[in-house]
């Protein structure tokens, strides 16, 4: 079991309505799961809780057998080995593509880092883009760099927040195909969030409806 969520409850604000209540989820290693629902259904919040960006009110999250959130326990985002591709990609504008990708692996030696960046750029089909800056890339390219950056440290789980919402229809098909290939190739456990059921079908993901 790669991810196990037990009875998760969360509200952004004490006074506000609970956005997630007693939510349960089990994801096997290498599985691709899609959380599908309308906006406000709490699907992105599940990702944020899994990543450690929010602290649950109650419930438990276990990643690769390690409890990361639960009663009296909270492991910070930076120590969870969970990778997340943000909806707006969040590529650091002041860093080149190379430095963006290497950001999470600066504990490696310089030469190892370089090889890893090369490897990832090859994986996302953007070889030779090392020296570019985010604003010099198209939307689709930015997303692939964001994916490469997320995969660089070798996370246990990959989270994709609305990966296709910023793309036009034509590009969308192409990106879905590419993304699917990359995920299959490295066999990483993936949870993606979308408001469109078609995305889930296309990615051959196990669909979980959220209301």
């Amino acid at each position, binding site marked *: 079991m790669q991810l196990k969520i037990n009875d998760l409850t969360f509200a952004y604000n004490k006074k506000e309505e609970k956005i997630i209540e007693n939510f349960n989820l089990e994801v096997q290693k290498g599985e691709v799961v899609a959380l599908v629902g309308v906006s406000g259904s709490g699907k992105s919040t599940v990702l944020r809780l899994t990543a450690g960006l929010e*602290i649950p*009110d109650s419930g438990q999250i276990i990643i690769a057998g390690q409890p990361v959130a639960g009663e009296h326990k909270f492991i910070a985002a930076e120590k969870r080995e969970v990778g997340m591709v943000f*909806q707006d990609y969040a590529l650091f504008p002041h860093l080149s593509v190379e430095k963006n990708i290497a950001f999470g692996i600066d504990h490696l030696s310089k030469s190892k880092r370089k090889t890893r960046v090369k490897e990832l750029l090859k994986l996302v089909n953007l070889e030779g883009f090392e020296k570019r800056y985010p604003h010099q890339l198209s939307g689709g390219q930015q997303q692939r760099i964001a994916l490469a*950056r997320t995969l660089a440290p070798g996370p246990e789980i990959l989270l994709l927040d609305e990966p296709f919402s910023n793309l036009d229809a034509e590009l969308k098909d192409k990106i879905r195909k590419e993304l699917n290939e990359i995920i299959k190739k490295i066999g990483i456990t993936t949870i993606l969030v979308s408001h469109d059921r078609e995305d889930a079908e296309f990615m051959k993901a196990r669909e979980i409806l959220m209301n």
Partner: protein
Amino acid sequence: MQLLKKLKKASPGWFLLTAVIITMLLIPNVNIIINLFGEAGENWKHVRDYLLINYFQNSLVLVIATGLLAAFLGAGLAWLIAAYDFPGRNFLSWGLILPLAIPPYIGAYVYQGMFSYTGPLQTFLRNNLQINLNQKYFDFMNLKGAIFIYTIFLFPYVFLMTKAFLAKQSASLLESSRLLGKRDSTIFFKIILPLSRGAVVAGSSLVMMEVLNDYGVVKYFGISTFTTAIFKSWFGMGDLPTSVRLAVMAMLVIFVLLFLEKLLRGGRKYSYSTSNIRPLSRRKLEGSKKIMAQFFTYGIFFFGFLLPTAQLLYWSFLSRGGELIETFNFAFTSILIGSGAAVLILVGAIIIATTARMSSNFTSNILARITILGYSIPGAVIAVGILLFMLKLDEFLIFLQTGFGLGTNIILSSTLVMLIFAYAVRFMGIAFNSVNSGYEKIGESYFEASRTLGKGVTETFFKIDLPMLKPALMSGFLLVFIEIMKELPLTMILRPFNFDTLATKAFEYASDEMIYRAADLSLVLIFFSAAAIYLITHRSKRRKK
């Protein structure tokens, strides 16, 4: 887990640092209130029975009249610049901010000098046209004169805030009003003014706080206000308890003002029902309207910047540059303390803003409130609070040092440490606002992305937040730098012996009617402030492109 959630993503180190800074910001204000319960000074009864009513009246008249006039002037000009196009508009959109580069006390002595019996205007009338008018027409040194000075040099606060607000408004609003057959003047009073009420009130309350803070103009004109009274009871009579009581009164006035501002501003908050906003398109003015708009806008620029600066240049020319070395020395001191203190204040503001960003809404609201507090309280009041605190601290330090047999080498009152501390209390809010709006622009996803990539809060701050905040930090630095360069009351009270900045020395020379020497120093001061204003306005323009 609930406590964890309250602190949200904050790390304890940041929180602790913030707590220390916030406590230091609160100390002077709390100190004043504590000291209020001490014994009253020997002069208090006299001040209370005979003078207080006068301080109240003068302060209120100045504050209210200036607040209203600046509101109309600033809002009107902002409207002209935001909604119309005419030759010179581009320049004026930042040129009309330039009056802020001239501290009101410098403006006051320039205008007084120009209109006095021996000034250029009357001399010209007398010698060339044989006109000798009654001196009462030229008397500047009264409430009306002070109101004029404050309005013409402080209105840019309203102008700036209203202009920024109007730039975000929708064009269809205006266009539909025009299509409904409304004249532009009707639109201004019925649509624009009510809509931008919040911005106008915010700007004009800044103006009012500056008026209450001012020491130079009222002192020079011989008008008694709270600020001059605090000075007088302290320096003139050596009666600190009386200054404390006056300071508390001034704080009360401020709190009433802040409350009124909230009342006027809050309540109704208008927002658009659609998110699709097309910015205002400017209407080109032709014919007589064009000339009127130019006449008005350039006229204000002339009286608020060009004329006083030209007069200063002329005086400086008459003194053949004066004593260059002395001028250079004061400029050097001012720039050094201005930039040094601005950097320190900015570091404090970054720490508070970073913690605020990681805390819950409630906590970050409180942090923001406390940080801004110092800017709304007059400098003379802060000075009283800080001096009270420093005297106590020194007692403690002396106790410690003699206890360890070290003599009494370290004393903090009347040192630069005390002055910089005071600047921090007063201007931290300005720096905080800059950093905070920088953070708002950046958003949270970069921070979160870095966290999921394995970086902690502090490493993320240095690698991601700090580089991305650079433009906001630059404008924060410049804003604080200008304020410190121009600052008078705090510096006058708290400076070390024989320590002078451009501002204090220019004011001293002007008070001693050594107007030519004052002119040189004022020009240097105005030059640096104007340059900073130019940099701020033009940096933001570049970024928009």
